[in-house]
């Protein structure tokens, strides 16, 4: 009994559960009360999210590709053939001191020869001759935490004693990194632009329905409703509009992606280009679209109700 009392006191200061229920009911009712305006709002969400969905799918794939390419970027440090064991250790210690590196592997000249022979297959046999007198260098394979640092780190290592040569596929890497960097910026810019266009469209459409309801909002305030009491049903309504508007885009983009993944995967698979499989991407994409839909719905709705609350 005491507990019950304490609870009811606490509940008074927040919002009673039945009031939450009332707001959800009201918000839901507004969806069908507003008829064609609801359809228009959902249409605006749907159109935008279709575009956003396609872009997000492309972006996620592009991002994946960029990550793959970046992961493959490594610096190969060829050690002088004349270097002694302790010279090699000195080089290793100095490379370890560079803060930007994320991994450092050593591959001896024997291992290098072996892997070379392996990649040559049958032709590799003739290289067996060199096992006695190996012309290859010992190699350090260095990766940097951020691929952008590759150039500076490579230049630095090149100045070390007993380093014969530093390679990282200079031209190709530089171009690829630049490409992925700009592709990411452009993609994010496009998605942000689309989302804001959608918010503008939706808040405008909802504003039309709210303008029609501004008189009602005034009456509610005169009867003693607080701003938040009025705002909550609009919040729910906006969220529902956004979620309803995201259903078709989710279906269409997922369907399209499923088709593309299964039919075109073989044809456009280059060594470094790999499409993200349907399974993890589908759920990510659905969630992203649902969240964006709910966000623009709520934002548009709450933004447009604001100016009518001053009565």
């Amino acid at each position, binding site marked *: 009994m005491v507990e019950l009392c304490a609870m009811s006191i606490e509940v008074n200061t927040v*919002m*009673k559960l*039945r*009031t939450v229920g*009332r707001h959800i009911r009201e918000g839901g009712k507004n969806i069908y*009360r507003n008829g064609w305006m609801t359809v228009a709002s959902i249409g605006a969400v749907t159109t935008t999210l279709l575009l956003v969905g396609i872009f997000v799918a492309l972006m996620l794939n592009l991002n994946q590709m960029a990550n793959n390419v970046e992961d493959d970027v490594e610096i190969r440090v060829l050690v002088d053939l004349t270097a002694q064991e302790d010279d090699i250790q000195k080089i290793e210690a100095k490379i370890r001191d560079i803060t930007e590196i994320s991994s450092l592997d050593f591959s001896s000249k024997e291992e290098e020869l072996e892997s070379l022979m392996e990649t040559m297959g049958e032709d590799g046999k003739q290289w067996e001759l060199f096992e006695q007198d190996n012309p290859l260098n010992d190699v350090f394979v260095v990766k940097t935490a951020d691929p952008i640092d590759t150039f500076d780190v490579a230049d630095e290592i090149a100045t070390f004693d007993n380093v014969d040569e530093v390679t990282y596929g200079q031209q190709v890497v530089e171009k690829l990194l630049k490409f992925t960097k700009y592709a990411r910026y452009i993609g994010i810019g496009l998605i942000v632009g689309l989302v804001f266009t959608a918010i503008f469209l939706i808040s405008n459409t909802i504003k039309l329905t709210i303008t029609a309801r501004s008189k*009602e909002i005034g*009456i*509610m*305030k*005169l*009867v*003693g*409703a*607080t*701003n938040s*009491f009025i705002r909550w049903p609009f919040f729910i309504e906006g969220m529902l509009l956004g979620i309803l508007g995201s259903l078709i885009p989710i279906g269409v983009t997922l369907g399209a992606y499923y088709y593309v993944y299964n039919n075109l995967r073989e044809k456009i698979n280059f060594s470094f280009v790999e499409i993200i499989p349907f399974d993890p991407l589908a759920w990510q994409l659905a969630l992203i679209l649902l969240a964006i839909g709910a966000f623009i719905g709520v934002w548009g709705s709450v933004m447009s109700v604001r100016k009518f609350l001053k009565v």
Partner: protein
Amino acid sequence: MIEMKDVSKTYPNGVSALNEVNLSIEQGEFVYVVGPSGAGKSTLVGMMYREEKATGGSISINGVYLNKMKERKIPHLRRDIGVVYQDFKLLPRLTVYENIAFALEVIEETPKNIRRRVMEVLDLVNLKHKARHIPDELSGGEQQRVSIARAIVNHPKTVIADEPTGNLDPETSWEIMRIFEEINARGTTVIMATHSKDIVNTMKKRVIAVENGRIVRDEHRGEYGYEA
């Protein structure tokens, strides 16, 4: 108890609607506010529930000073005062029942109490049989009865009415007035701005006459005093 001390209202465009008005209304009184159009009647009653904000002086209702009141407290003030408007101000898409229940929903009353109270006031205004109708399906008199029911469903100490019979024919007006008298008989203060000479002269109450933003007459069991 409502007290106004040196209350003035000047609109931003420079028009002065009220000029140093002093007024005191005891709990349980029935007061008419009369005067020519544009004299400041609506401004005067509008200040009592903060639809209008005074630009000078002080207003207190049951010990609460309205001019010091924070913006977010206003909804709470309006829950303690029932207001009846000339144009009813009913929510057009809600049924009669829902319109009245709304005033209780905002104070988060239990559904059981809401049902009980709404049916009680619907009984008082004789509209139980119209509970499921929307306002557009009712006559003007019926709509006004709904708005009165909504105003009193909270058991407010004060009911303010701004020309409640302004849009109604004489016969319906009397019906409305009987309800106000009934409310007043239960101890609720009733303050009513009106243009109806018949009502004021027949149902004799305290009369406050406003002209050019000043109170020019304040008498108990007074007359309307203007040609209708």
